[in-house]
């Protein structure tokens, strides 16, 4: 397992470096003077000179890159248009988005996995068709539209839940009230994918020889399904989760925009609207880094679960 982890971590580092290079080059590709872009559009010559000095804009590109990375690793991602340190803004917003992401993944898992299992066990019957149909719908409905509909229905018409905004953890009940709709909306797409993957994976597992052995041993159906088949299927599904992470990040951006939650995603949206290049640069870099790290964690989880990797 050690070898596997080392290789995966090495790969992740390589990807991280290349991605950061791309972000770096991207900022330099913005039309116009990079000093203006990096200086949050401030055209005051003194400020421009200071920006040029700080980012070493007169030196060759590789030097600029190294310096820029150096600054980033020390938590300096520049200042945005409102003169606030980008890193600070991003860091203050991440916990909110993290809460949204984790909550929605939780909901998706709690709904999607059992549904997929039931659909596989009752293949071809009513439960299977119901789950497959719902999953298909979940895949086909853009979740921001779902969000809009949810707001119209639950907030505007029924007044059960607030239409948007965010309340901190100091008021847990209110926090939940505000988060429940966005989390459910974001969870819809993933639950759909999970349902389908789980179903397909369980069908494979249940058709395997070792299930016949388990039955021949006289184990109860519950034991056969939940212990023998499910363990194998969960491992396969973990790899799928890794691929969904990217969609999760995209989904967070959209959902926060719809529900006006001041998180990392909404920050992304605002940064584009304001054409705040320093902020955009910081956001893209952090998003990419976050994805790579999360992916690595999924890989680690997978290696722990899969005995073929763990025991070698």
């Amino acid at each position: 397992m050690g070898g596997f982890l080392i290789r995966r971590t090495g790969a992740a580092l390589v990807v991280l470096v290349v991605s950061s290079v791309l972000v770096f080059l991207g900022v330099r590709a913005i039309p116009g003077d990079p000093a203006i872009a990096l200086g949050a559009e401030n055209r005051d010559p003194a400020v421009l000179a200071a920006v040029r000095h700080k980012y070493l804009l007169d030196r060759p590109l590789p030097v600029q890159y190294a310096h820029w990375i150096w600054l980033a690793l020390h938590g300096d991602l520049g200042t945005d248009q409102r003169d606030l340190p980008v890193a600070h803004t991003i860091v203050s917003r991440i916990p909110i988005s993290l809460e949204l992401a984790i909550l929605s993944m939780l909901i998706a898992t709690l709904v999607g996995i059992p549904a997929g299992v039931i659909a596989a066990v009752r293949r071809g019957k009513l439960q299977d068709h119901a789950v497959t149909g719902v999953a298909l719908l979940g895949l086909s409905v853009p979740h921001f539209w779902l969000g809009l509909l949810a707001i119209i229905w639950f907030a505007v018409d029924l007044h059960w839940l607030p239409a948007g905004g965010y309340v901190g953890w100091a008021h847990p009940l209110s926090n939940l009230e505000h988060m429940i709709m966005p989390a459910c909306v974001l969870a819809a797409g993933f639950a759909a994918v999970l349902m389908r993957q789980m179903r397909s994976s369980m069908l494979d597992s249940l058709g395997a020889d070792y299930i016949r052995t388990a039955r021949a041993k006289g184990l109860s159906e519950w034991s056969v399904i939940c212990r023998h088949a499910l363990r194998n299927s969960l491992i396969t599904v973990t790899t799928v989760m890794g691929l969904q992470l990217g969609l999760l990040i995209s989904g967070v951006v959209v959902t926060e925009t719809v529900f006006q939650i001041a998180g990392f995603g909404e920050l992304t949206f605002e940064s584009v609207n304001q054409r705040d290049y320093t902020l955009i640069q910081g956001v893209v870099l952090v998003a990419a880094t976050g994805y790579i790290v999360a992916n690595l964690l999924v890989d680690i989880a997978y290696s722990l679960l899969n005995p073929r990797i763990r025991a070698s």
Partner: protein
Amino acid sequence: MLEVSDLSVRFDTDDGPVHAVDRMSLTLAPGEVLGVVGESGCGKSVTCMSFVRLLPETAHVTGRVLFEGRDLLTLSARELRRIRGREISYVFQEPMSSLNPVFTVGRQVGEVLQRHLGLSRAAARSRTIELLRLVRIPAAERRLDEYPHQLSGGMRQRVMIAIAIACDPKVLVADEPTTALDVTIQAGILDLMRDIRERLGTAIVLITHNLGVVADVADRVVVMYAGRKAEEAPVPELFAHPQHPYTIGLLGAVPRPYEGEGTRERLQEIPGRVPSLHELPQACAFADRCPRADEVTRSQIPQLREVRPSHFVACFHPGPG
């Protein structure tokens, strides 16, 4: 002890019904080794898997399977599960895929011990080590915590056997236990089976398409063809005086080492193919390929008759080749 009568199995497929087994009957006495022989698709596995209802839902099983006086086909699911793994257990053909890849060997053996004998985790562990030693797996303590993919094919099969004999069953059904293994490993497994019969007194149903295996281990043999029983006899009797043309054909097709005198005999192959199992022909299933076929065999189903002491044949023209 085990009495199967009038067993028929029909699968409903998209291409129509498939009659895999047609009115089979079998008996098994305590401690005896019964060989069930036939080519692929003749219904031997299906017959034996139907004892404890291990077939998929698409299979319709009719008939009676009496085990110690109780009909297993009508038993409740719960009662049946008490018999599976404890009184009647199985060893399957593919050791690679018959063990769950995500559980350790120890866990998979211990599972039956805990479920049927109520052993605690610790007791199951030590008993598992004993069982692994019984099936001659070296370094048993270490193997306990290993995963199936870390063992060789032969060892995996031994683990399967350990699982099967863990609760000291009365019947062990081995479905082509050696077919997927190298020839050199096969002998070891067969040795083990003989050992088990002698030491534990377990009755064994040995399914195989290899007559050599049968000659080696079995007491009695049943030859199946196209879902029906063709011939049944004690092993020495069958090999010395085969009666059914199919059996004779099978024996003729066994390669024998050249013994040095005269010209070598050609391997006899049986011309033709196994009939499709979509219909139940009202005739001898072997008629199309049989050198002794005539009007009678093509129009009636031959019934089992005792043509020599303890030797039964379903043929209109039994006799030596």
